[in-house]
């Protein structure tokens, strides 16, 4: 038996669930096919940073618009996803780095946005008293913050379900066939048909795109994170660094989560990723350089989240260039969590209206046309 739907979403991560929710709210019959369980990979286990600060200029407009959804997440999904607007801080350790931040702030202001602000060393120490004494200043965004990734993703899934979307967990996609007026999606357990298929398959989105005839030059990221034991509260905002790959955040439970993009090793076939200790040690060293107090903290666990990366490290949010009815939303390259809520709206626009007024022009699927092979 073939199950009919108005839209099929492949991937039960934050982007898939967010798209499913927006489509269901517009009255579409939506089926989400998730090979394992909701939030199993990057969506459920990322560092949880909700950040407009320091983004690629192409992402800034969408990211800034997207922030509104986080501040009103309870209204949207009935739960705040653990979001706290604790602010984000990007630290400069030298005057050169600080000058770079000033230049960056100007560039963002020239786009007409004022959210990023540069502060001096005194202000930095007032906000982050535990910061190493050599730090000279920082860039801050006050409305940014952090959320609980698994909780947020689960909240989107739950709300999508209550809006009528069917989320089928344990259903992996093995085939895709073009049919008159739509697509037949072949799952491990069942078959599904709809005019539109949304590819939100995360690390595996390249494989999904291939099934539709689109080839993108993607790599797989396996960004590592570690978490320490609980410590007394000593840092409020999420702290990053100009010169080091680092994101540093103390959770409400008191544990400290350290990420920043150091890479482990991923295996897409086995759906697993492994920590690379030498690289993880670099994260630890970076954290200790900015927060000397953290050297004494015990590490509880380390892990990797896997994700697709594009050559220019910004996502693809677009119709397929050659497969009508396929909408791609992937390739967030390790920083797609904050964009999840707003991208659901963009995808729903693409599906229901064919286009969107949201600023997603830079995320065209055609920009890799030169590298893509003909279908």
């Amino acid at each position, binding site marked *: 038996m073939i199950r009919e739907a108005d839209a099929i979403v492949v991937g039960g991560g934050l982007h898939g669930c967010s798209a499913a929710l927006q489509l269901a709210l517009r009255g579409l019959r939506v089926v989400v096919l998730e090979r394992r369980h909701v*939030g199993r990979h990057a969506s*459920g286990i990322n560092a949880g940073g909700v950040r407009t600060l320091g983004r690629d200029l192409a992402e800034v407009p969408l990211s800034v618009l997207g922030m509104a959804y986080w501040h009103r997440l309870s209204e949207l999904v009935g739960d705040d996803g653990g979001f706290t607007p604790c602010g984000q801080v990007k630290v400069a350790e030298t005057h050169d780095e600080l000058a770079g931040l000033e230049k960056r702030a100007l560039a963002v202001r020239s786009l007409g946005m004022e959210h990023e602000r540069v502060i001096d060393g005194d202000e930095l120490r007032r906000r982050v008293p535990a910061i190493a004494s050599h730090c000279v200043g920082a860039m801050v965004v006050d409305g940014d913050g952090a959320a609980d990734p698994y909780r947020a993703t689960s909240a989107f899934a739950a709300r999508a379900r209550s809006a009528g979307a069917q989320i089928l967990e344990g259903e992996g996609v093995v085939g895709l066939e073009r049919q008159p007026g739509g697509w037949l999606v072949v799952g491990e357990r069942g078959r599904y048909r709809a005019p539109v298929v949304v590819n939100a398959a995360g690390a595996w989105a390249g494989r999904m795109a291939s099934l539709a005839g689109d080839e993108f030059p993607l790599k797989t990221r396996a960004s590592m994170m570690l978490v320490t*034991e609980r410590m007394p509260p000593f840092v409020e905002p999420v702290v990053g660094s100009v010169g080091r790959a680092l994101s540093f955040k103390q959770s409400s439970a008191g544990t400290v989560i350290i990420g920043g993009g150091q890479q482990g090793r991923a295996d897409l076939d086995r759906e697993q990723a492994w920590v690379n*200790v030498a690289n993880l040690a670099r994260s630890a060293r970076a954290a200790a350089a900015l927060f000397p107090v953290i050297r*004494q903290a*015990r590490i*509880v*666990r380390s892990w990797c989240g896997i994700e697709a990366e594009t050559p220019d490290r910004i996502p693809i949010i677009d119709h397929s260039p050659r497969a009508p009815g396929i909408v791609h939303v992937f390739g967030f390259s390790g920083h797609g969590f904050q964009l999840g809520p707003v991208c659901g709206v963009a995808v729903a626009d693409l599906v229901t209206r064919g286009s969107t007024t949201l600023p997603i022009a830079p995320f065209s699927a055609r920009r890799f046309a030169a590298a893509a092979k003909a279908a």
Partner: protein
Amino acid sequence: MSDRPFDLVVIGGGPAGLAAASQARQLGLSVALVDEQPAPGGQIYRAVERAEAEGRATALGEDYRHGLGLVRAFHECGATLFASHQAWQVEPGGRVFATDGKASRLIEGRRVLVAVGAIERPVPIRGWTLPGVMSVGAAQILHKTIGLVPDAGVWIAGSGPLTLHFAAEIVAAGGRIAGILDTAHGRLPETALRHLGGVVRGWRYVARGLGYLARLRMADVRRVSGVENVEALGEGRVERVRWRSGGQWQEAPASGLLLHEGVVPNTHMTMAIGCAHDWDEAQKCFRPRTDRFGMTDVEAILVAGDCGSIGGARVAECRGRLAALGAAASLGVISAAERDRLAGPVEAEVSAHGALRGFLDDLYAPAAELCVPPDDVMVCRCEGITAGRIREAASLGCRGPNQVKSFTRCGMGPCQGRMCGPTVTATLAAALGMTPQEVGAFRIRPPLKPLRLGELAALADAEAGE
């Protein structure tokens, strides 16, 4: 950053690891042994050299003194010992990361033998988190290392050879205990009859067990059999112990309560490496899948001793030797034929020492309520998660321990689910009507041992030339 690569890196200095190191050296392999204790011996022969030097080893029993021979042979074999080093990560291919508590180092092996022994099965009863309640194994460590003897108000509750062994050890050391609450529900004569062959072949072990019982009777230690539903009660610490036997609830004052329900393989390391594991229904635990030489399905990684399958010290010693043969053959140092020739007598010894295993598994199988505790009982002490919360997560759609972890934080604490893992798997399996194999286990992530961030950063400090 790295020491020279060894042919074989052995992790764990108990009987399996010591025997493997000596055997591998005899075959001409270069060997490193990484052990977290200051001196080799493992749990079973912990501090055996010091105990001998201080004249306490004999009181601890002939079995304990057997370890001296192993330790002495190891010291003479020419292996490099990394004592007081905790191995906290093993990468497939043979990279072992270990810390001495100040800095981490990389120890590379062409083969790595995981010989990290057993851990005590969790005993989630009502009140087990109260101060004054600890495991028999922990109490035994205190006794073996600093000679601490429990006071006369301490009860021992549980089953398995270790409870009797430890009680007899305490009596021999001149100590007193309030009594033993024996929770074994297999009945001795019937179980013995069912495993008659094994009991006859393993008569030395049976005789030893009966010897413990005789010694305890002579010392007039109170022993209650057929005990169920042990509970620790008290305000702020254990003050009373309550149990049911013969359908009657009973209660007694207690200054402490020592729990033990047998041991299970310590699979944290092999799970973190990614070795395949199977559920062992007889021993109610997961164990790594291996061939007869302890080779796992992951290249270069071998397993020996109780972390592979519970067999006791003498079996572990044999398995260590077999693994050394397997490693040597896989490195091309000896031929497969030579390996098999040398393995023959060792395997015969395994079968002799292991004869009693079926009987013990049957006699001391843990009670169902301990594997799958009632709703109000604490399962994850680190995060304060009860069995009821796990069932609630199951009813909300969680199909495995890792989802339960994301949902409830169960197993997210510093012990990484070492204490609660088996209980979570069993409780979830029961709630979902699935087998433990289907439900699976917590994914284990490095570090396998508590590691300070500075100890990890040291690896990068060295690289940056600091």
